[in-house]
């Protein structure tokens, strides 16, 4: 059951998008998010859909795979849409008691739904095409300017990559402890919420103890390999910003300009 958790859902590949520098990809994703909120009319969304579809196609990640990311958020999307549908003031089209359906409400609800969908699509494409380690590396370099202001950027990135490294190990361990406790009669499935939360204690206590022990051993092993923080550290794969990155930046910039001009047209 624990195998279902997907975190850092990397889809290995060697497409143009995969090969882009992680830091550039992070920045471009942020730009993409801003663009989503700049759009004012349906022409813009058409353009956005075309752009997103195009990126997904060249990333070679199956479309079905990307769309799967929306599923867990389906209820959230529907809830937001309904809320917007009835809570927006404007020209009333239909009324039932205190429920008012307005023209503005309908268009706003549709906008909101589209926004969330594209938000999820864009960000999941980022995690699908960037390995967790490249992503942490990208975040570290993105935060470098703040390092001069005293933010421990290297330490933050190191913590993130170690956390990612230990997710599968700890999941495996959780599974093992769970089975061991179940073999001794523990019941994780039945009862109400409080009962089930209580049942988790015999799972969490050993898990935490072992996690701390692991942390201690890892720290010693890292010291044995001369770890001393981010100072004078080099990398196996030095990341370089190349032509593909510049092309991607120009492309996204053109897209942003197109959206702005379409906004005016509408």
């Amino acid at each position, binding site marked *: 059951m624990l195998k279902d958790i997907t975190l850092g859902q990397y889809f290995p590949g060697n497409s143009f998008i995969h090969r882009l520098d992680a830091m550039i990809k992070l920045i471009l994703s942020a730009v993409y998010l801003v663009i989503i909120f700049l759009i004012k009319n349906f022409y813009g969304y058409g353009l956005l859909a075309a752009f997103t579809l195009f990126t997904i196609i060249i990333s070679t990640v199956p479309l079905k795979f990307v769309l799967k990311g929306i599923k867990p958020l389906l209820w959230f999307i529907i809830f937001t849409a309904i809320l917007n549908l009835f809570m927006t003031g404007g020209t009333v089209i239909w009324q039932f008691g205190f429920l008012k359906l307005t023209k503005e409400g309908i268009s706003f609800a549709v906008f909101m739904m589209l926004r969330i969908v594209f938000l999820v699509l864009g960000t999941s494409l980022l995690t699908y095409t960037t390995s967790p380690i490249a992503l942490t590396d990208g975040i570290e370099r993105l935060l470098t300017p703040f390092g001069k202001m005293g933010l421990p950027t290297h330490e933050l990135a190191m913590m993130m990559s170690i956390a990612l490294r230990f997710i599968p190990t700890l999941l495996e361990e959780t599974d093992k402890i769970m089975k061991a406790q179940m073999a001794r009669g523990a019941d994780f499935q039945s009862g109400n919420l409080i009962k089930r939360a209580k049942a988790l204690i015999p799972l969490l206590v050993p898990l935490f103890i072992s996690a701390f022990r692991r942390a201690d051993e890892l720290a010693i092993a890292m010291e044995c390999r001369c770890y001393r923080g981010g100072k004078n550290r080099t990398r*196996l794969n030095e990341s370089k910003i190349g032509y593909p990155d510049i092309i991607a930046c120009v492309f996204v910039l053109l897209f942003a300009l197109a959206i702005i001009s379409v906004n005016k047209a509408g």
Partner: protein
Amino acid sequence: MIKTKNLEFKYNVDLDPVIKNININIKKGEFVAVLGHNGSGKSTLAKHFNAILLPSGGAVYIRGMDTRNENLLYEIRREIGMVFQNPDNQIVATIVEEDVAFALENLGVPSQEIRKTVDWALETVGMSEYKKHAPHLLSGGQKQRIAIAGILAMKPECIVLDEPTAMLDPIGRGEVINTLKRLNKSEEITIILITHNMDEAVFAHRVLVMNDGEIIKEGTPADVFSDVEGMKSVGLDVPQVTELMYELRKEGIDVPQDVLTIEQAYEVLSEVLC
């Protein structure tokens, strides 16, 4: 290469020392096995070799460098690599080659050179084809070889291994021990193997036996294991074939006592039986 002088260590001033009166001298290129049951102080001793623990009394010298000298810390750690019991808890990165590169990244080696050394280290432990794999998908023996490669990448003079096979299945155990033998022979790396598996100690040039924080016996595997009663009295076993020879001698059959491997035993027994 490694020298200790009246080494003593206490976790707390008021407590009894965990190890005491340790005077050893390990030469370059040696393969030394340290034996002892749980709590005999063998892991504590190992942690003194690369300044993870510092002596409470006496001193440890690594090629003449005192481990208490903080300025020499990273030089010492580069010379004396250390591999631990649980392979999962020593692997830092999510990709094999990135993990092997970790030590070199810490030492500030330029990236082309890292690439070369990482490839060499993975080649040496026979894990080149797994370069791009995720470590958590490998077997225990493979993970432990990755951990060894990670240490090997620092090009140390000596590798200390603290029960590296305790968590492995027999196949993984064989993989690790063969890797160590090869490193000792072809790369001339000094190996200090801490273990309580007697069959692994047989390959060593020299065996140190620890009990209650002291070294009680020292010598070649044949010397140490011939004393079956002495070993049993400190709660240790001898290799299975040595024990067989011991039992046979007790029954009055004339067989040599210093038989350590199955091959030797086969020869001896076929002579007795024919």
